């Protein structure tokens, strides 16, 4: 059972309170009907499924109820950070902090993470 830092509750909570919600930063087009079949396939079905850093959505469904995003390593299951829905995709330049304590989900300010200005979709 993972321990996940909810960026709204501002603390780590047990995974049982959360629901995973798939890959993050796949924005729904505001012109859905304009998409080609290929574009729709890409939007709805094709996934990065990376071995390593993934950006993914979670919902604190049995907590504050908010959807938010996380950057996690799919090989170790360690979270790099979590951030609020709607915030832009961060640039994570330092992938593997040496300390075992990287298991903890820390504030972006405590990590070598660049948070771009606030804009962009989910």
């Amino acid at each position, binding site marked *: *059972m*993972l321990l996940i830092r909810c960026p709204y509750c501002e603390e780590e909570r047990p*995974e*049982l309170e959360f*629901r*995973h919600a*798939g*890959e993050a930063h796949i924005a729904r087009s505001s012109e859905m009907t304009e998409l080609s*079949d*290929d574009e*729709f*396939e*890409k939007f*709805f*079905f*094709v*996934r*990065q*499924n*990376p*071995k390593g850093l*993934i950006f*993914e959505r979670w919902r604190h469904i049995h907590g504050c109820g908010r959807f938010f995003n996380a950057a*996690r390593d*799919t*090989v*170790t*299951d360690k979270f790099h950070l979590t951030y609020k829905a709607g915030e832009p995709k961060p640039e994570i330049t330092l992938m593997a902090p040496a300390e075992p304590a990287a298991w903890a989900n820390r504030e972006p300010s405590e990590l070598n993470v660049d948070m771009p200005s606030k804009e962009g979709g989910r």
Partner: protein
Amino acid sequence: MRKYSVFAIAREALRAHKGWDEQWSSPEPRKEYDVIIVGAGGHGLATAYYLAKEHGITNIAVLEKGWLGGGNTGRNTTIIRSNYLYDESAGIYDHAVKLWDGLSQDLNYNVMYSARGVMMLAHNVHDVQVFKRHIHANRLNGVDNEWLTPQEARAFCPPLNISQSARYPVMGAALQRRGGTARHDAVAWGYARAAADRGVHIIQNCEVTGVRRSANGHVTGVETSRGFIGAKKVGVVAAGHSSVIMQMADVRMPLESYPLQALVSEPVKPVFPCVVMSNTVHAYISQSDKGELVIGAGTDQYTSYSQTGGFHILNHTLDAICEMFPMFTRMKMLRSWGGIVDVTPDRSPILAKTPVPGLYVNCGWGTGGFKATPGSGHVFAHTIANDNPHPINAPFNLERFRTGRLIDEAAAAAVAH
């Protein structure tokens, strides 16, 4: 290849078993092969075997980053059945069941295919409707699957709790008598031995790090941890790692990889005669030849390549097992482990040509790949040899995610694998 038999064992018994051949050799890779299979699991080894046996292609290497059979082949709960709803699914899984029956003799390796019967429990009216739909469809497809009353289900599996006081009383069951189990390691080893005997190179500890293509886009070989190896055709059979390998050829897949856990109990004398699956209370169980109760759990909710999962998943699984079989609370969990399952949006596999000429992919089996091993290898070999799918796997293409022509067993059935 020296034939395995009771006589061979008797002969070897007299000389301390020192005369056995290597089951498969560990050759150095050649510069180039006609076909490279990426992934020496059951499906990959079976593909190589059938390419050699039925299509006369023997200049084949099967590349494995770890040890053969060490991925999902060696980590699953070995359930075999073919009572799927859709014609396409019934087609491929029943093709596999027909091959399972006789596989030991074909490979001269006892894979311990045991047609003990797979019984799927219905716990509510909806389950009953869904299972009956399966039974009718299976019957008209020539696939055995029959309806049992709760009393008949208990007669078939005496430990089953059919009490009305259960939280979700058993309302009946769908039984496929030809369903059952097999010995997972033996499947990998049997195919490896038989393929190696026909000249196939099995190269372990050889990780694929890139897919090389010619100017016109055709596959020319793979980069590996042991250098470049040329190939006219490459078949990717990498299960949980399929997305990773395919991305090396710039093909993005409709796949996500999830942790799937399983566990066994300590061995006990025979107590459980068949395989039981329940979607509603969510668990499945059988007893191995060794006496261990083999129990499957659901996937974790998040994607992962870690081969571990949350303890709470096992917890929920055992809740369900002890609800169905209340006498098992005093049994003990001996071992638990995790694998990585690659799941498609419609929970059906992909066995197909890809947009890259010479590159073929066999993936997306989710939690149900083991049962398909012989059938999957058989039709995938056909696909590679002919550069054209076998009619059985033609529907399991990549185009379906664009057209919407999905084979959505999960949506249609709400039945777990």
